[in-house]
């Protein structure tokens, strides 16, 4: 299953679902909705955390958190 953690910088994806129930509420509230397009824009040094463009703003999260967001490639 492809997750947001698999994206490389500049790649697009579309959120399809979440694997972690507790995190999903926080992510939903921050605008990570199923069907939303995301673009991975930055890595922090050493590849973690990551920054992505979603719903018109920049959101950061750790790689392990990104791995709970399922996506499909666009």
């Amino acid at each position, binding site marked *: 299953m492809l997750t947001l953690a698999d994206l490389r910088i500049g790649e697009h994806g579309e959120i399809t679902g979440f694997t972690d129930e507790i995190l999903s*509420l926080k992510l939903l*509230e921050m605008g990570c909705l199923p069907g939303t397009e995301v673009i991975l824009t930055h890595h922090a040094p050493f590849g973690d*955390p990551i920054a992505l*463009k979603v719903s018109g703003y920049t959101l950061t999260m*750790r790689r392990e958190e990104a791995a709970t967001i399922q996506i499909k490639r666009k």
Partner: protein
Amino acid sequence: MTLANVTRIALIGNPNAGKSSLFNTLTGLNQKTGNFPGVTMDKLTGVWELEPGRNVEVLDLPGIYSIYPKSIDEELVINILANPKHPDYPDMAIVVADASNLKRNLLLFSQVRDLGIPTVLALNMIDVAENQGYVINSLKLARELNVEVAEINAKKGIGVGGLKLAAIKTLKHRYASNDALPLPVSEQLIEDVQKQFGEADPYRSLLWLMEHDRMKMFSEEQRESFDHLMEKHHFESKKYKSAETVRRYEQISEVVERCVINLNRQWDAEPVKTWTDRLDKVFIHSFWGYLIFLSILFVMFQAVFTWATYPMDLIDGGVAQLNDWLKEILPESALTGLLTDGLIAGVGGVLIFVPQIAFLFLFISLLEETGYMSRVMFIMDKMMRRFGLNGKSVVPLISGIACAVPAIMSTRSIGSWKDRLITILVTPLMSCSARLPIYTVLIALVVPEKNTLFGVFNLQGVALFGLYLLGFFMALFSAWVLKKILRAKERSYFIMELPTYKGPRFKHVAISIYNSVRAFVFEAGKIIVAISIVLWVFASYGPGDSMAKIEEQVRVNNPSLTGVDLTNKIASEKLENSYAGHFGKLIEPAIKPLGYDWKIGIALITSFAAREVFVGTMSTIYSLGGEVDDENATIKNRMRAEINPDTGKPMYDAALGFSLLIFYAFAMQCMSTLATTYRETKSWKYPLIQFGYMTTLAYVAAFLVYQILS
């Protein structure tokens, strides 16, 4: 303005949506804002003239993304909004929404409206949205959402008139919310909640049920009944919240579809590259990012330690001159002594901090204002995580260089309890500004001024920087130990918005500097001056009539002494026999292994409540117990002249100097910090742990340093 019948309006919104800017515009009140999540840690109130002759109270609340709190700072909002009996419960809410991120901002709006509070939607940053290609039809939006919508520019203060009209209209008509729940639940469940806990709107009843653990209005028993109700009806709040959020977004998307024109889609172009994107290429780069952060820290230290010394020398010299002048013109009496050696020496010890605190807060508030602080959290998270901390711990740790009290309060935005607790416990190890004068005085005594390292760096500056690094690494090490000991209640996470870069609002920077300097001078100053006076009394008087006899004894025992030498001898004998001298002697056996004598003992005792008292105490002790020569009246020179009676060499040699430096670097000597830790952890256990481990660390480290160096 706490009258019950005053109309109260709450400002609610996402972090960075512009709430605090709007608050300042409306109330003219000078309140600190910043461009990183979590600046408004507590509620703030101000007065807004809604109509001529009609003032309302405005309440600024911490920024939240939804009504469901994820961290301590967010809890406050639901505690006020879901409890009509709360003294701050508003008559109306203004939800400030960032128009460039409309959907996410409307989520919170829809939750607030469903609570049954009359709500106005204030659309901020419309210019940003338009630059990104979004045109919002706010009239249509108002019709769709069935509320008043006001277009504002909080930063420039535009649109306040429209907001006033919207507020007046909403207060008059009290637009009711829609009574339906976002997602249906069993009617029986809502009825049960209302039966047991009182009549309330359905959504509010549901909020009580889901968030009862975070709501202070409920007792322990009531919380248990809520748990029973959830069990009885097989209600899972996490599932409901997620489903509710998805449902709300569906409704919001439909509304936005109808009210917002997306120019980008029509042209099918790639989104515009913004300045923020370009700057982030550098600021969070894996090499340049760290280099820039380090350079900023370096400049900050340079400012605090080099540039600030000029005004500091002026203050130091000025106070010494004032004291000498007063002693000359005033008759010699106990009152003159209290004024000069007690009060003015104490006040001088406070004022001398001011330039450094001002420089520190200049930098910290600039970093916050521009949005750079969030980037620091981003690039530091991975490293901090290894030590049981969090990217968000960076802000408390950096603020800890100024003062641990606001630093500990700023940990409220850290969502995970364990990460937050560890940050609270280790933050006081960061060398705060109160330690700075101690460092400055002691380093000047034991580190030669002229020597330079590689011909570039001033050796004293290097020593000072070393002490700050030592504090930082000790904080990391202690955090790592605590990480192994403490058990996590929940998983740590780091999901955070990176705000766009903004130019600093210099008025806000100035206010931030002014507020922190004022708080320091008046809050810390009060303690320092009080202790200075008490100390002067204890150092000037002794048990029984021993003090009166000393003068005679000295004359008899030292018949050869005359003039200045005689008065000096009398003064130092008097100090030794005073109450303070007795206290110092009492603890001398315990501190002897660290190299300290009873005079330093007095300073240690007085600085247990607040370490900044050390220098003041030293100047009081040495001005009482020694010569006050006009040219050498600064504290540094008095200490340098001190001779160790056992060896006959200068008292402040390298071993003693470094032992004292290390002691003050690690010791927990700040009542305010301990009180803050208690307030933030709601338990005496953690301030006690903090006090215990830091004091032990200080004693052991100072012991080792003294024994190795002497």
